[in-house]
């Protein structure tokens, strides 16, 4: 993830979090404010309901008392106080009296609790209302809620009882008003609020018993569970209902249980407050937050772009410079922007590449000097060996001049022969150096590595078992169906030949030479192992350095040539060696090499790797090439 992206996301998340927290906070505060407002409204409505309830109750009490005080009622009471009074004459009286006093419910009940006449259920005469005959101060009771049995089923009534006493006999007048939608209609409700009344008249929840001021309530069964709670434990409750998936349909309710004389639940008043305004406010807050976030995102995008321009571009330039350095361009430089951390970093980078270049030049110079010294030492060593016989021979000739001509002739003849031989030797030495200097560019063609290996082994078969030399056995592990690679067969033969020679030189006491070919990921691997004395790690490090040799008579060019061939084929060479066990060379040759020309990659060497080292260590350029 780029710094820009990271910066963008960090900024965005920070913005989201801050805006979210603010929006949530505002929402919570707003909701609390609304809830408080709703609570106040609900309490006001409940208080209004209770006030209206009491007012209606007082009205009912007055009207029932008015009936009790009426002359007709007193006359009835006097008549009924007589023994064996005929109550049947009054069986239809309740209807007219209730109409004149505008009461929905009216019952005249005799002193034994039997209904004399009933307005709400005329056919119920004669049935007992024993609860009325219980000793009770009905004046102090006032009005009360009651489940009233009517002809059309139970109803909820706001009732009052009055008595007319004649002698020791009472005439009870039970009257009241129906509590229903008409009652709710009389309540003055603030906007967004409504009152629902559930009349608990049936054992189970009945949606038809739930009414509002206009009649039945749609989806009233959603309140069933709350009504059940009130049934279980009557108390004031608040809750919220979302009528539809739209949050604006939510409604907060305040439930007020309505109890009868025996504290039994007879109804529940629900004061509902629409949450639409609050949801709208929340919506506005959310929209505002989203707008802020969107603006923040845009701002973040611009900021991240600007930040990238200010922060990531120097870093990217640094990364580019580092990459160039890693590719060998040690002279890479980055532009320094400002004096802050990035600027200081760029300055340090430039200082580092400058120092690296200087150090590399010093190192190259040192190595070049060392190479030249080595070369000089080798040349001196190589040349000193033939020079000493030349010098001796010439000295012999000088001394033979004084001898007899025959002797002189003999000496002369012997000495010229030696001189020629040594001069030839010198020519060979010069020729080998010349050959290394003139390594040809490979001419690629399909080459079967196994065939090349077999050719090399066949070339040296005689030497492996030469007389007077400890035998060397060979083991070939050549992979079947090895793909042909694009290579120069002669150079490859020469490289393998050098490796075999190197192995033979490493096994003066004989041993096992093992050659193995395998296919690996579009490349052909070749392993050449011996069971010689092995190399030290230091030797391994310098093994491919030209003119470096561990042998008494080596030129130090064999493995350098191998490395050069492998490199020219786009391959890699590495070495594993353990002292006393042997040495293995691993060549990896691509099937289709992407050759680097000297012009295009003049300094790209092959990458010999010494086993046991953490990273492949690039070999230094051959001194000869440098030279």
């Amino acid at each position: 993830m780029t710094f820009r992206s990271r910066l963008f996301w960090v900024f965005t998340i920070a913005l989201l979090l801050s805006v979210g927290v603010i929006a949530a906070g505002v929402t919570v505060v707003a909701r609390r404010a609304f809830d408080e407002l709703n609570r106040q409204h609900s309490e006001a409505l409940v208080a209004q309901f209770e006030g209206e309830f009491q007012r209606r109750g007082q009205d009912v009490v007055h009207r029932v008392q008015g009936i009790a005080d009426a002359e007709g009622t007193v006359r009835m009471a006097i008549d009924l106080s007589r023994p064996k009074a005929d109550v049947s004459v009054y069986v239809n009286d309740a209807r007219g009296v209730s109409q004149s006093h505008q009461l929905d419910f009216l019952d005249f009940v005799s002193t034994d609790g039997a209904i004399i006449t009933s307005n709400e259920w005329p056919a119920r005469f004669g049935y007992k209302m024993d609860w009325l005959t219980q000793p009770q101060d009905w004046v102090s009771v006032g009005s009360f809620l009651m489940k009233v049995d009517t002809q059309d089923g139970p109803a909820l009534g706001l009732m009052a009882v009055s008595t007319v006493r004649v002698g020791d006999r009472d005439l009870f007048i039970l009257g009241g008003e129906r509590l229903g939608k008409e009652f709710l209609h009389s309540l003055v409700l603030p906007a967004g609020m409504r009152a629902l009344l559930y009349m608990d008249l049936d054992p189970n929840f009945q949606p038809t018993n739930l009414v509002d001021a206009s009649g039945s309530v749609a989806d009233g069964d959603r309140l069933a569970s709350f009504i059940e709670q009130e049934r279980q434990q009557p108390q004031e409750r608040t809750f919220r209902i979302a009528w539809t998936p739209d949050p604006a349909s939510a409604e907060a309710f305040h439930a007020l249980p309505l109890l009868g004389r025996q504290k039994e639940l007879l109804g529940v008043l629900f004061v509902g407050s629409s949450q639409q305004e609050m949801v709208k406010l929340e919506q506005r807050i959310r929209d505002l937050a989203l707008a802020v976030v969107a603006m923040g995102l845009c701002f973040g995008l611009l900021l991240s772009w600007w930040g990238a321009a200010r922060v990531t571009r120097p870093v990217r330039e640094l990364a580019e410079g580092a990459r160039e350095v890693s590719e060998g361009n040690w002279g890479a430089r980055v532009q320094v922007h400002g004096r802050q951390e990035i600027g200081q970093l760029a300055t340090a980078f430039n200082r580092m590449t400058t120092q690296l270049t200087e150090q590399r030049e010093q190192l190259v110079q040192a190595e070049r000097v060392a190479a030249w010294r080595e070369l000089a030492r080798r040349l001196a060593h190589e040349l000193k060996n033939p020079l000493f016989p030349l010098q001796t021979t010439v000295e012999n000739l000088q001394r033979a001049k004084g001898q007899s001509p025959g002797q002189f002739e003999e000496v002369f003849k012997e000495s010229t022969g030696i001189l020629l031989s040594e001069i030839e030797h010198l020519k060979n030495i010069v020729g080998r150096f010349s050959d290394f200097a003139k390594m040809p560019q490979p001419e690629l063609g399909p080459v079967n590595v196994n065939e090349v290996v077999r050719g090399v082994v066949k070339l040296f078969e005689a030497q492996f078992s030469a007389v007077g030399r400890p035998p060397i056995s060979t083991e070939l592990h050549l992979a079947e169906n090895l793909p042909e690679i694009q290579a120069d067969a002669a150079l490859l033969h020469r490289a393998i030949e050098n490796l075999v020679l190197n192995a033979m030189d490493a096994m003066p006491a004989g041993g096992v030479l093992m050659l193995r070919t395998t296919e690996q990921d579009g490349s052909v691997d070749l392993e050449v192992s011996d069971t010689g004395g092995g190399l030290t790690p230091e030797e391994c490090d310098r093994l491919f350095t030209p003119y470096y040799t561990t042998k008494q008579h080596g030129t130090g060019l064999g493995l350098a040539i191998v490395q050069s061939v492998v490199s020219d084929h786009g391959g890699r060479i590495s070495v594993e060696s353990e002292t006393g066990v042997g040495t293995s060379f691993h060549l990896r040759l691509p099937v289709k090499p992407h050759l680097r020309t000297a012009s295009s990659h003049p300094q790209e060497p092959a990458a010999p790797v010494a086993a046991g080292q953490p990273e492949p260590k690039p070999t230094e350029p051959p001194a000869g090439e440098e030279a």
Partner: protein
Amino acid sequence: MKLRWSLFLAAISIAVLLAGGARASRRPRYGGALRVEIGAVVRSLDPAGTSPDTEEAEARSEIGALLYDQRNSDGTFAGVAGSGAFHIAAWESGKHLTLAVNENYHAGRAFLDSIEIEMGRSAKDRLLDLEVGKTDFAEIPPEEARRTSERGVRVSTSKTQELVALVFVPGRPAAENPRVREALGRSIDRTAIVNFILQKEGEPAGGLLPQWSNGTAFLFSTSADAGGAKDLWSQIGASPRIVLGYDSGDSLGQAIAERIAVNARDAGIALSVEPIATPAPSRPSYDARLVRMPMTSSHPREALASFQAALVPLSGLDAVPLSAAASSEQIYERERSIVSGYRVVPLVWLPRVYGLGARVRDWKVPAAGEGWPFADVWLEQESQ
């Protein structure tokens, strides 16, 4: 030795003569038009015509008794219209009928000159008109008799001669369960219906015939047994809901049906009431219905036969013919067999109640099956 009225009358005459100052008897006065109001709307005076409206059929029968001289045993009339004490003077179908006296009626001219019959007058209007003297004669609902009398209207009440019964509709699931029928039948408090709804104008009915008819009505229990009904109802597995129908427009039937619903509810029986439209639907939605059956004869056998004939199609009872010489015992047994299955549950017997104007004299309550005896009625001359 027999008590002879002649001896009584002679003795009384002597006593009156001896005592002196006896008030002279009032002899009938000829003349006047009797104003009659009825609730029915009579659209046809054809004696053979049929009407689904029971009230119209009864009114037509009453009018027929004034128009025709002879009556057949089945209640229809013989002869020609106008052969009776009165003939039709003016006829406005469904509204008004004027009957004029037959001057040469063979049984003697009626005292009235004419009878004016106003139709379609509601019970409330009839009562009001009686009270203010706007009419001389109107039949009034039995339950209004006491109140009407208390308002100063002369009231004449017959013997109980109309049966109100609950009849289960055959084929309905609830009606085919004997326990359902018995439970409902036993739950009904007939005495309360008589005392309160009928204002004591009537009698609880356990059998089909009133006590005065066969003398055995007391053998049928009329008491309510809510406990027994409750036990019976609890034995019914899937308790059905009973729908009790009553004729629409029959306020008394409605009041009785609603009281039955209260009684049933007290016994735990689920019962609802509903009015039955006229004419009754071919596929009733009710399990039982209230029927009002006027007695067509005072004779117990004939009355029972007519009840049975009316009940057979309604209740699915077997039509068992009743011998013309059936004894009181046999009549009782037949009654018992009809009501024992609770397919027919007699409720109350009703009297016929008539409101009379102050000037009406010599009004005699007609017996069951008899028409209004307007031929014997006379009107007292109103003071100038």
